[in-house]
């Protein structure tokens, strides 16, 4: 089994999952605060993290959920959450996220990233992106939902690993469990 149709079917499946969120009426700000609270309770970030998730809107239309300027980390010119030492990364790794949702709570697009330094001194980063539409040359080279994995967040040449549907909250869980196996969800 291979070929264009399968790649296109994966895109359709992700779009269907993304649109199905409209029936769940998820408040993405609250959902992300819950995930971050679990990290804070296990001492992987400051407890104040709960107050660092902002949600902004224009006339109640699309909603942008991201990390506010109260946060303790910076990536470029953007605010980030500092992560304490994990099994795989040294202290002060940086977690970022940005989510744009529609008024019905379905997700238009998101990016969740984690970057830091491994125990051996090598840089490490991963960024999961759900694009709003298919772009690039096609769904094989540029899957709608993908993860950049590499050493440099500014790199343009790292492969984009295709992902099955995951929400931005699950993206945070996945990235954190990747660097700290003790954070495997158990609830």
């Amino acid at each position, binding site marked *: 089994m291979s070929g264009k149709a399968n790649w296109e079917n994966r895109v359709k499946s992700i779009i269907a999952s993304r649109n199905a969120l409209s029936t769940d009426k998820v*408040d993405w700000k*609250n959902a992300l605060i819950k995930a971050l609270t679990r990290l804070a309770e296990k001492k992987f970030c400051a407890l104040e993290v709960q*107050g*660092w998730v*902002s*949600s*902004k809107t224009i006339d109640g239309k699309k909603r942008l959920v991201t990390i506010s300027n109260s946060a303790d980390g910076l990536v470029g010119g953007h605010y980030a959450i500092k992560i304490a030492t994990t099994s795989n990364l040294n202290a002060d790794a940086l977690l970022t996220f940005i989510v744009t949702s529609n008024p019905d709570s379905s997700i238009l697009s998101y990016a969740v*990233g984690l970057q830091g330094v491994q125990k051996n001194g090598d840089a490490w980063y991963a960024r999961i992106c759900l694009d709003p539409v298919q*772009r690039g040359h096609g769904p094989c080279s540029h899957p709608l939902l993908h993860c950049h994995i590499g050493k440099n967040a500014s790199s343009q040449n790292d492969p984009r690993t295709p992902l099955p549907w995951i929400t931005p909250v699950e993206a945070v869980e996945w990235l954190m469990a990747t660097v700290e196996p003790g954070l495997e969800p158990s609830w």
Partner: protein
Amino acid sequence: MERNSTSEFWVLLHSKDPMAVVVYQDLSHQQDLIDLLSLLKPKERSLIIADNLDSALKNLDDIVIVIASAEPTAVQELDGRREAFMERTAPAVLFLQAGGEAIKLLQQSYSLFSWIRGNRLIDPNELDSINETEAGADFLQKSGGLSPKEWLEKWRAGSVPDTQENAFILHCALMLENE
């Protein structure tokens, strides 16, 4: 520092401010805000949801959310018994509907309004609204002079590098794009 409702709520719930007013839009928004306050409260504090102000005077050390069935009456009552709330060591949070009679009454009760504003009056709708003009000007700086629509056209065509910085710009463009 840019204000937003989450940080305002977090600071409020971790303070000893005796009283705050929260403005909600509709019942769905009210429920989202109750859920948010429940998430943000300090672990060591209990949170009580009450339908009258008496509960806030009985449970001085707990966070008390007051969802009054008659909001204007609650405002009048608060105006008359304000001093009694000064004993509280955790916030009581009175929910009032935007544009309702109770908010108008609060604004007309000058002394009470001034006290609440001096303590806490949190309107998430106002705090979490993006100023489109300011955001548009900020976007032009980040995008090298391209409008959100022009930038998105380039992005969709695949001619914008797939970097972390551009992932942030993408979301700003999506917010500002006029459909």
